[in-house]
Structures are given as C-alpha cells and as structure tokens.
C-alpha cells in the first residue's frame, strides 16, 4: 500500500511515554524520504508528519525506533460520508439489477397472460423457450449472482440465509423450466409449462425491494448524521500570536483556539478570554443560550452566538463529549431489546425450517393434490421458499430502536441500550432526588426583613459571610453582588459551631445565626421568632441577624423550586407514574417543596445510602422503579433502580453508567424519555406483529391452503413481490417514529412562570 499525501498525516503511537521517546521517534522519521517535519504529541500520543511521504515507511521508521504506530482512523464524519456514498452506489446498483431483471420478466409475463402460450409442445417452442431460458440464465447470473454465490458459501458453512431461499426458489423455477425445454417427454402433457418469467421477476422484485430498503434505512440513521454534522472540520488555532486554520484532527490538548461569533465550538475546552452567549440546545435540548465567560466550560458542537471567544482545548477527538454522545447513540442504536428475543430465536432457525416446510408442502401437493400435480408441486415449492424470507422479522426491532434512540438524542435524552428503552416503558414509580432536580440545587436568598434599611443589612451580612464557607453564605453574598453592594473589611471574624458567625463590619459587631445564637448572646428577640417560624414553615431556612447587640432582622435562604418542576411533575403523573421525593434535607423543608409540587410521598432526612434502600424496598413491593438524580452521590440508587435517569449530563461517568442520561436538569426530560420509549416500543410491536403476520400467513397461503376456496395457487411472482416489500414496510413504519414529538414542548413552558 503506497499512499502519498501532501497534507499532513496523523498516526497513533503506541508505547510512547516520555520526552526521550519523542526525540527518538522524531529523529527516526527525519531519516524517512520526503519528511519535511515530524512532530510527536506526547499528550494524545499522536505523530504528525508533513511532506509527501509513504505512510507505511513512516510506520516502519517508528517501529524500527522500538514503538508502534498506525494511521489514525479517518474521523467519524468522514467514515459516515464514505458510508453514504457507498450506500448510494449500492442503491443505484440494485436499481439497475432490478431494472434489467424486470425488463426481461415483465414482457415474458405479459406474453404469458395475453397468449397463454408458456408450454413446450413442439420443437419450435422448444427452441424458442430454450433461447429465453439462456437469456434468463444470463439475467439470473448478472442480477442475482450474489444470491447464488452467497447461498453456496453459506451452505458450506452450515448456515442458511435469505440468499439461500432466493437462490433455491428462483433456481428451482429455472431448472424445472429447463427440464421442460430439454426433455418434455419426461413430464405429463399438463406439466410442460415454463416459469422463466417467475425467476426473472422474483430476482427483479427482490433487488427493487432491497433498493427501497437501502434508501429508507439511510433515513433511520439521520439522527447520528445530525450529530456528526455538529463536529466542525477545522479550527482556528492561535500559535505564537498568529491565527491559523487547521484540520480539527490536528488540534491538540492545550492549544488556544479562537471561535468567532456564529461559529461552532470545535473541541471541548474552557474559556480563557472573551464573553459570549453559547447555544447548547443541540446537546442539551435546553433552548435558552448560556452566557460564557473566562473559566466556563465549552462543549464541542455547540454554537457561539454573539461574542468572540478564546478557549483552551481540554479534550479533542474521540474524547469530546459530543464524540462520546455519538458513540453512545451508535451503540444504543444497535443494541438488542428484550422484546426482540422471540424474533431472534425464530430467525435463527427460520430458513432451514422453511426449506423443510417447502419440500413437505410440495410433496403433499404431488401426492394428494389435483392435476397438474407436477406443476402445482413446483409452484408451491417456489412460492413458499420465496415468501418466507424472515428479513422483515429480523429488521423489526433494530430499525425502531435505531430511530427511537436517535430521536431521543435529538431531544437531549441519551438511552444507553435497548433494554433500558424497554424498561422505561412500564415504570410505575419514579423516585426523584430533590436537590438539583426538583430544585435549582443552589440556595438563594428569598426573604430579608429588617428594622432599618434592607440593603444596608444585606451589605453588612454579605460582608460578614464572604468569610464563611457555608453554602448558605454564598447565597447571601450572591444576592449582595446582584444588587451591586460593595463588600468591605471584616475584623475579628469568628464561626460559632452550630450557632452562626460573628464579626466586626464598619465598626459594628454583627451576629448572624440561629435562635440559639441570639439566646446565647442574651439578645431580646421581640416579634422576630414568629416571622422566622412562618418562613421555616414555607421550607426556608431562616436566620437571625443582630447588630451591636440588638435584633436587626431575619433573612431566609431556600433552594428554590425549578421553574418547570411543577409542570413536569404533573406531566409524569399523567403518564401514570407515582412520584416519591427523596432528600437529605429536613422534613419541614422537604414537605414544603412537595406541597408546592403536588408530590404526596416524601422521604426526608436521608443519608445517601438510604436512597438505595428505598428503591430496593419499593421494588420488593412489586413496583417498577425509575430513579432520577444527578448521578454522582445518587449512583447506588440509580444503579439499583430499574431505570436510572442521570440528570444534567454533568460528568462523563454519569453518561457511561446511567441507563438514561438527560442532557439537562429538567424533569421534563424524564417525561420525554418515558414517552419516547413508549412510542418506540409501540412501533416495535407494530413491526413485529406485521412481520409475524406476514410470515405466519404468508407461508400457508404460499403452501396452497386457499386453493380449495380460490382454486388458485399463489404465484411465485406475487410471493417475490410480497417478500421484497415486507421489509420496506417495516423500515418505513420505523421511520414514522421520526415524527415523534414529546407531548409538551418544554421550550415553550419555560417562558411562563420563570
């Protein structure tokens, strides 16, 4: 294989671990003819070679230096494009074969229908049909040769495929007809009939059916293609102050990349300079663009809207989240669904069974059927063989899963495999981790009531709390920052365990904490406890503030309920799911949230390990339990549940371990996932039903059970057409799933009550 390329070539290296290796390899390559520059990247273990060089020579050079190398695989997108091209070529090829075979078969059939002369009763007819037979043989070889060669090879391996059936069916028809032509005297007068048109038509129709199938299949993978299109082909890298466009495959970890407005983020990275809004809806389904500034993470494939960003590449190539999503979707698309097991078992033994049935039916016709026995025997044999091909059965589940999983990805629902998809359809209980799923996950300042100026108090408290590590403190500081209140000096800061904090701000002593703190300091509480209790009843955490030994006010902090949680809970309940809330928070807070959302079952004050126990207990009670959580501390419960929904796609670990990963934190995603899996399973059942019906009815009809009623046998040509179009029907029905929409467009419902 000699491969010369002017553009730089990339190799993957093996065994490279240190700077010494890099030197050795680079110097080994500089000996290779044509190498202009060779650069090893230790980080991602790649070698980049510039210049017109032979790839094999480079690999040999690396090997002689004691390491391993291989040509880096083309990007997934390139592979996909090649695949498409190949598919298109295959499609045209099939159409040609179909056209030629039908071009012979149709006129022959018309001749037979008009003149009724398909028999061999004279030497002229013998000669004429002999010629037609040879032409037919040519067509069979040219348009259907692959069936015969495939059948033969499979036969040698003790296996039987659809090629076997097609080859046997058409071959039998042709051989019999040739026998009629060559030795008509062997057969009774009534059986001297040729079936060349059937052979040609069947080959033509099956090729046509496959062509249509190839085309429809192309559509089923549309979702992955869309994801692949999100990957950019080039990136603008900043090297020694200059900006250069380079192919995406050459971007390395640590490179600084410029992304201008309207461009896609090329790799995963972190903003180092600039500010912009980034549309992440293609990955998360979240419609609102997210604002990004220095330090924020960016995902490959998302769209930079309005500002110019400089980012530092952190993950490239197959490591990016987008690539992992694509990989996961592809894997899920081709995984099995438990419901397919029956179809699997059947298709595995199907073809030989059909061959036996065909011969048995033919013998019955020969022994017990009406005249012309030989002709009937042949028609039955051919028709059964042809109609019975189980390809529709084999396609029934994979096609639906392919479309369903892809559709999920479009909606920010990543399903790990077909099993998860099926189990998600019949969940009856959903346990939900409160924090981060039902609520925002970050406490916010909700109330501030004071004796004097609210802002003044807030400023002082924020000042004080800027020294505290407590999560509630952050809420206060954030609220002050939002009001542009300046933060100043704090002296004598002291954290009083289990009570609160104390410090001097602007020459005043500030106290912030619970009631115990106020009582300990002997401060008169006045009417404040009532207010604090009212706030606590609403699920908020109230704190007392005192300035210079006198009560100054009460402030409350709460983890606010997500704006779309209520609608999502309602939607899930309408889908027939009982919702149970899990939380480590105290009972009052938990119940306040549950009341607000219409959730009846609450488990509060939980330790992380309790969550798993609750899931297990529910399962023992016969419930089919789904668990929604944010994937890290909920991991054991997520794993225990029948279906674990990891929310928010936070970590790559979550993507790998959860049954379903939701790319955004909204509970609507769970509802989308349940609806989608139900729609997919319904589609699979339609397909399986269709395919089963087709085979279970098709075979007896082809075997002639309707003969007593209709007085006719199923023509092999009709059998061929039915077989060819059965899989087209299945694939088309699966494609209908592409029209699936979640019942509620959460993009719209977001606007209302935010």
């Amino acid at each position, binding site marked *: 294989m000699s491969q010369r390329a002017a553009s730089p070539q990339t190799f993957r290296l093996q065994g490279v671990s240190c700077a010494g290796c890099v030197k050795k390899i680079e110097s080994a390559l500089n000996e290779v003819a044509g190498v202009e520059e060779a650069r090893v990247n230790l980080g991602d273990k790649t070698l980049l070679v510039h210049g017109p060089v032979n790839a094999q020579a480079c690999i040999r050079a690396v090997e002689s230096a004691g390491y391993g190398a291989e040509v880096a695989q083309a990007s997934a997108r390139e592979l996909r494009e090649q695949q498409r091209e190949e598919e298109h070529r295959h499609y045209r090829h099939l159409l040609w074969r179909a056209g030629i075979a039908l071009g012979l078969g149709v006129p022959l059939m018309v001749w037979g229908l008009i003149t009724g002369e398909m028999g061999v009763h004279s030497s002229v007819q013998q000669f004429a049909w002999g010629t037609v037979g040879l032409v037919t043989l040519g067509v069979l070889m040219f348009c259907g040769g692959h069936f015969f060669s495939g*059948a033969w090879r499979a036969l040698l391996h003790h296996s039987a495929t659809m*090629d076997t059936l097609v080859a046997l069916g058409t071959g039998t028809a042709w051989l019999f007809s040739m026998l009629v032509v060559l030795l008509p005297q062997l057969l009774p007068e009534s059986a001297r009939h040729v079936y060349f048109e059937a052979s040609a038509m069947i080959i033509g129709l099956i090729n046509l059916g496959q062509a249509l199938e190839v085309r429809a299949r192309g559509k089923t993978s549309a979702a992955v293609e869309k994801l692949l299109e999100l990957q950019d082909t080039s990136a603008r890298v900043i090297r020694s102050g200059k900006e250069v466009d380079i192919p995406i495959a050459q971007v390395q970890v640590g490179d600084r990349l410029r992304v201008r407005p309207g461009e896609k983020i090329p790799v995963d990275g972190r903003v180092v300079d600039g500010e912009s809004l980034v549309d992440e809806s293609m990955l998360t389904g979240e419609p609102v663009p997210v604002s990004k500034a220095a330090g924020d993470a960016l995902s490959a494939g998302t769209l930079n809207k309005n500002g110019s960003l400089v980012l530092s590449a952190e993950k490239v190539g197959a490591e990016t989240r987008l690539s992992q999503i694509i990989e996961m979707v592809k894997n899920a698309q081709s995984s099995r669904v438990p419901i397919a097991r029956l179809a699997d078992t059947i298709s595995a033994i199907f073809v030989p069974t059909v061959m036996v049935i065909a011969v048995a039916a033919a013998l019955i016709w020969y022994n017990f059927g009406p005249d012309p026995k030989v002709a009937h025997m042949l028609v039955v044999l051919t028709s059964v063989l042809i109609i019975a091909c189980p390809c529709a059965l*084999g396609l029934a589940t994979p096609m639906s899963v392919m479309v369903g999983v892809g559709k999920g990805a479009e909606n920010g629902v990543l399903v790990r495999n077909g099993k998860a998809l099926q189990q998600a359809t019949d969940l009856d209980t959903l346990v939900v981790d409160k924090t981060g799923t039902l609520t925002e996950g970050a406490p916010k300042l909700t109330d501030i009531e004071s004796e004097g100026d609210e802002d003044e108090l807030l400023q002082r408290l924020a000042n004080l709390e800027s020294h505290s590590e407590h999560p509630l403190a952050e809420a206060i500081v954030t609220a002050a920052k939002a009001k542009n209140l300046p933060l100043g000096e704090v002296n004598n800061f002291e954290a009083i365990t289990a009570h609160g904090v104390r410090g001097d701000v602007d020459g005043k002593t500030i106290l912030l904490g619970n009631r115990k703190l106020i009582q300990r300091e002997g401060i008169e509480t006045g009417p404040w406890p009532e207010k604090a209790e009212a706030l606590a009843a609403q699920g908020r955490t109230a704190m007392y503030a005192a300035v210079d030994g006198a009560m100054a006010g009460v402030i409350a902090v709460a983890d606010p309920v997500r704006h779309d949680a209520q609608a999502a809970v309602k939607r899930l309940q309408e889908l027939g799911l009982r919702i149970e809330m899990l939380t480590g928070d105290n009972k009052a807070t938990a119940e306040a949230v549950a009341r607000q959302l219409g959730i009846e079952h609450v488990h509060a004050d939980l330790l992380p390990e309790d969550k798993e126990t609750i899931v297990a207990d529910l399962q023992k009670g016969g419930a089919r339990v789904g668990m929604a959580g944010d994937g890290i501390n909920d991991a054991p419960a997520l794993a225990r549940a029948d279906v674990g929904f990891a929310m928010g796609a936070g970590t790559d670990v979550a993507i790998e371990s959860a049954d379903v990963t939701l790319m955004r934190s909204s509970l609507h995603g769970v509802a989308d996932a349940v609806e989608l899996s139900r729609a997919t399973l319904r589609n699979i059942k339609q397909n399986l039903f269709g395919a089963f019906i087709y085979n279970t009815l098709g075979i007896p009809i082809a075997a002639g059970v309707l003969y007593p009623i209709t007085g006719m046998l199923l023509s092999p040509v009709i059998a061929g057409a039915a077989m060819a179009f059965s899989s087209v029907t299945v694939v088309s029905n699966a494609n209908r799933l592409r029209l699936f929409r979640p019942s509620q467009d959460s993009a719209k419902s977001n606007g209302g009550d935010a």
Partner: protein
Amino acid sequence: MESVLINFLGLAAIACTLWWFWLAPKQQKSQAAEASETLEILVKDGVYEPEWVRVAAGKETLLHFRREDTSPCAEWVLFPDLEVSAQLAVDKVTQVKIPAADAGEYPFHCQMQMYRGTLVAE
C-alpha cells in the same frame, strides 16, 4: 415408479436439510482462528470467515472486520452478550473493540441473525 422417486427425493432433501443445518455443524470449535492484528474477519456472501474466533479471556481485544458484502444485512455486527456492536464500512477494515470477557462462547451475528459467528474466550 416416478412418484416413488419424487417422494424419495423429497424426503431425502428434508433429511439432508435437517442433518446439514442442525446436526452436522457442531464440531468446529477446534478450528477457531486466533484473533490478532493480522486476522481479518471477512464478511462476505452470508458468512463470517473465520466464523470461530478465539480471544484471550479477561483481556480487551481488537477484531478486524472486512466487509465485502454490500447487502444491507451485513452492515452491522452485534455481540449481544457483550453489548458490543459496530457498523461495518464496505470494502474497509473496521476495528471492533471487544471488552474483557470471561471464558466462554459469545455468538455474534448481523441484525437478521443470518451471518453468524462465535467468539471463543479462553
């Protein structure tokens, strides 16, 4: 005479089919080919060749599939027990990563289960 012949041929065909597809194929494990860098599993004409592939148990392995069959059935190869699947490009080698597996036999096949092979982990 003629009817005896035809009936005999028919029954013989049934017997041969049953024997050839179900009873005969049981003795091929010994011919399993060792998976390696250079072993290409050819996907062509309805079969995987070799159809028995041996890999080391408990170790991740790369299999190299070369698909020369354009028929849609051959497009995917699935290892259902290992939850592995791959889309095979036509006329190219596609690498399929097999995760570490316990010793045992793992069937692999196409979507329609017509192409069939077995992975033997030892």
